[in-house]
């Protein structure tokens, strides 16, 4: 029988790099489900003011009468908030580890297999975090008003008007379109990476499928989001 020649330095699973990756993957999947639902809701802009505002009101009354007004929405917001914290925490912890793991850099280093999406994962993530803060200040907390609509229509009164007036400002639409490119890249690598981390891609065919699903979901979400501000800017939605 083999006798132990070395003490095991640490036991247990929590705190390991793979645990941190799992945390990142699970919270990431929560975000994927959220952006899919959010994107679907945004498309109601194309069905007119009444439809979009009814949907917006519907979110606040979700779960009524069993739950109070804004009840289920608050629960979902808490889940998303906790997920953001865990996602960023694991990202920073792994980023730091990666820097410690290679203290001396290569003078020449070629990247053979890395996709553009994977190269931008960390800085793209930082950009998305900043974008989300801006987005919440603008449309959830309504602290930043861009365009003429913001001053007259709070989001609770007329969200449709707020959205349309905001995106008639060209530079705001540009910021959002750039953010959607960042979101596409983050999802494209993130969904595949999460599948791999959760151990769902242990065969070559599963790997191909996971990469295809990641690409399709990333395209659907980013294009679905992007067409709303774009069509407001060009005047199709007004």
């Amino acid at each position, binding site marked *: 029988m083999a006798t132990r020649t070395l003490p095991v330095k640490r036991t247990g699973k929590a705190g*390991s790099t793979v645990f941190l990756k799992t945390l990142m993957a699970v919270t990431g999947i929560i975000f994927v489900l959220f952006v899919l639902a959010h994107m679907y809701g945004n498309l109601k802009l194309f069905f007119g003011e009444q439809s979009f505002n009814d949907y917006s009101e519907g979110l606040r009354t979700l779960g009524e009468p069993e739950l109070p007004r804004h009840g289920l929405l608050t629960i979902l917001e808490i889940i998303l908030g906790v997920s953001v914290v865990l996602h960023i925490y694991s990202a920073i912890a792994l980023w730091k580890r990666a820097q410690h793991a290679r203290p001396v850099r290569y003078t020449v280093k070629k990247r053979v297999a890395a996709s553009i999406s994977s190269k931008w994962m960390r800085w793209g993530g930082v950009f998305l975090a900043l974008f989300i803060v801006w987005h919440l200040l603008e449309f959830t907390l309504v602290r930043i008003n861009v365009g003429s609509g913001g001053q007259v229509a709070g989001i609770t009164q007329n969200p449709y008007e707020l959205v349309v007036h905001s995106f008639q400002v060209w530079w705001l639409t540009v910021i959002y379109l750039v953010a959607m490119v960042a979101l596409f890249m983050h999802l494209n690598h993130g969904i595949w990476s999460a599948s*791999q981390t959760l151990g769902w891609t242990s065969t070559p065919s599963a*790997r191909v499928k996971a990469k295809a699903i990641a690409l399709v979901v990333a395209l659907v979400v980013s294009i679905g989001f992007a067409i709303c501000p774009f069509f407001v800017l060009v005047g199709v939605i007004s």
Partner: protein
Amino acid sequence: MNLTLKIWRQDGPNDAGALVTYPISDVSEDMSFLEMLDVLNEQLILDGKEPVAFDSDCREGICGMCSLMINGMAHGPEVTTTCQLHMRSFKDGDEITIEPWRAEAFPLVKDLIVDRSSFDRIIQAGGYISVNTGAAPEAHSVPVSKPAADRAFNTATCIGCGACVAACPNASAMLFMGAKVTHLGELPQGQPERDARVIKMINEHDAEGFGGCTNIGECAAACPKEIPLDVISQLNHDFRKAKHAH
């Protein structure tokens, strides 16, 4: 052909290192990369200079001793080990930058030599099966399915050279561990220690100072034995399912 080599020179672990330029002429395209370095070293010795220290052993691509980051690619531009890389992969007039593997867990010893014993300690932590020694058992007494045998063989081809770590943007050794965990996990003999193996290996990996995997795929592209990325998924899968560490 005539080449310009830029080689990392460093006297010892705690000394400062730098790239030093060496012109080399009349290199045959039939030489292996290491033979080309042998020629350079003979010239350096004749000139009374310190030869370039680099690792090599079998020189037939099976031992995993040779390393070298060649123009930013682990083992150079071909999918093979440095010893099996030939000078026909380069052109006359090329400038070739040669650096050691760079990782906290692979401390530099001298010039292009790094200490890869962290890999040995990962294997010692869990990359084995426990059997009684004595007469070898009859090979067919434990049936193994063809697909399982194939996958076990394919992943057992890992020679532990460390190219995966060298190429990884995070200096992670997940492909190396994934190969071993998949190899033993596919076989009946690997089952009793399967849970403990993956936990102990990852603990040791983290303690050695390797980075975390971001599933970019540089490791699999650099691997001279073409170990595929799905072994990392297998490793993550086994880790998630593992219940006990003993």
